[in-house]
């Protein structure tokens, strides 16, 4: 909370950015063969929206996130952040990966400080690191090394490492996928609260339909690889949400049907 208050003071108008994905196709060369992974994907995200991307495993959602992050360039089509074409990584679009990928040689504090250090502004902005660590509730562990943390704590550090940069688009690549179910429920609530308070745009890739409908304003459902958009569903329920909400349960049934999994429901 402190971090975000400070962030708003430091950078007025730094809330969420819009994202415009237009006719994006992408493919990989594997042993000489071309493997298409994304096919003519187009969607727009308004500033401050929380959009979940759902789809079968290996369909290309994570590739789409790498394109949004600017880690790779699409074979065709364009991605725009607030109207500007994305040409490379930039700290306004930070990714939280499925694995926390903390640097094992850095303490929690120095891991969180990574972005500010890379941008050369750490010296004047040290308080932001402390605030981000407080925000994820790990003040007691600021001098711990990653191997001393549990999986959930490590993922919290990864979240703090992203948030310290005041992202305008937070890109979440199955960040809770490897956590136990209790930790996952807690962290879902925390992410939701963070997003509601700060107003950044969020793009979440997940396999968990319940997670998608609980967190997002909109759920975009992808087909098998090469990924095409199968459905774009608004989740029109107010926050804070309740997991037992029958409207969410109905939505979940509908989406599982789209994924061909309604037989087990």
């Amino acid at each position, binding site marked *: 909370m402190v971090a975000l208050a400070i962030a708003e003071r430091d950078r007025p108008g730094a809330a969420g950015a819009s994202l415009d994905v237009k006719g994006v196709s992408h493919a990989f060369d594997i042993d000489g063969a071309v493997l298409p992974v994304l096919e003519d994907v187009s969607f727009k995200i308004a500033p401050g929206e929380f959009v979940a991307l759902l789809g079968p495993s290996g369909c290309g959602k994570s590739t789409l996130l790498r394109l949004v992050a600017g880690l790779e360039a699409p074979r065709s089509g364009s991605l725009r952040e607030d109207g500007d074409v994305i040409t490379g990584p930039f*700290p306004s679009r930070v990714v939280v990966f499925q694995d926390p990928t903390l640097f094992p040689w850095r303490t929690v504090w120095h891991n969180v400080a990574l972005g500010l250090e890379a941008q050369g502004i750490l010296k004047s902005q040290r308080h932001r690191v402390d605030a981000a660590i407080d925000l994820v509730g790990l003040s007691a562990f600021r001098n711990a090394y990653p191997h001393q943390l549990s999986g959930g704590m490590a993922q919290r550090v990864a979240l703090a490492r992203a948030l310290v940069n005041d992202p305008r688009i937070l890109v979440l690549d199955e960040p809770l996928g490897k956590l136990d179910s209790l930790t996952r429920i807690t962290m879902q609530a925390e992410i939701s609260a963070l997003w509601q308070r700060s107003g950044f745009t969020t793009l979440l890739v997940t396999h968990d339909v319940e997670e998608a409908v609980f967190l997002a304003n909109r759920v975009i459902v992808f087909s098998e690889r090469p990924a095409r958009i199968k459905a774009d569903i608004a989740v029109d329920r107010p926050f804070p949400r309740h997991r037992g909400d029958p409207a969410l349960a109905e939505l979940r049934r509908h989406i599982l049907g789209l994924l061909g999994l309604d037989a087990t429901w």
Partner: protein
Amino acid sequence: MSTYSETSRAAVLAQTAEEGAALEARPLSLPSSFLVNGPAVFASLAWAGFGLSCLWWEDLGDWSRTHELAITAFVVAVGILATTLGGSRLGRFAAGLRARAPWLLALGLFLTLWEVATAKFAWLPLPFFPPPQAIVEVYTDDLPKLLASAFASVKLQLVGYAIGAAAGFITGVSIGWSRSVGYWVHPILRFIGPLPATAWLPIAFFCFPSSWSASTFLIALATAFPVTVLTWSGVASVSSAYYDVARTLGAKPSFLVLKVAIPAALPHVFVGLFMGLGSSFAVLVVAEMIGVKAGLGWYLQWAQGWAAYANMYAALIVMSLLCSGAITLLFRTRDRLLVWQKGVVKW
């Protein structure tokens, strides 16, 4: 948190060890203090025996330090005994001595045997196997020359090793990072690297202005090869996920090299530094024996020429202390720099 769990674990271990000792003590019906102090008492006796063996029989040769050696042995014996008996007041020192008591005992027995087998009965042929007092004599009477030699060796080793380690590190990082550097340097490395550095000796000695600079080059060469290869493999094996994370956070290429690739590769680099240290010692001694007119290698060669075998053993002992000291220093540095590895990797 971890310190707490470690201390508590240590406490539990200590407790179980005590219980174990108590259980063992019961059937023998010996006082437990004897079991704890026994090895130290025997070690003290062994050193006293060593001192006695020096005095009991006449020396077969003409050695001037036999009495001093005997007195030193008695002092050590009394020291061990006093430390053991006053154990609780001396704390850590006494605990350390107690832990090493079996070694002190073995050492005392070995010295006694050595003394008897050489100086007293010449079971081992004499000029080639000098008694302990002959080696002590070297340390007391030839100290300036030995010190000068040790200093020359350390200087040559330090300069050569530092140059080699720095060159190897920079080359390794460049090959690991840049494909074009790798293209040009890799074949050279494959061709020249495996050649033992000593093979260059004849060429080095006429290419360089002095034998000292030639030896420095050879030591640097011997160090650089393992450091280069391991630094390179360390940089090359850094997970691309680390680079992805750093890049999304706004890292520039220099940051990726200095703050991601190099720290991630450091454990490998230290393996290379360790291997380089070993091979550079070998080159150092050979270079000093053949070309450089100073250093412990030269001292060894000189001693052999004069059939001064005691001097040879004395120099060997100094050399071994210096080499193991250098390796200890390297490991200490590694442990300090790679403190984050505790509990991650053991090697």
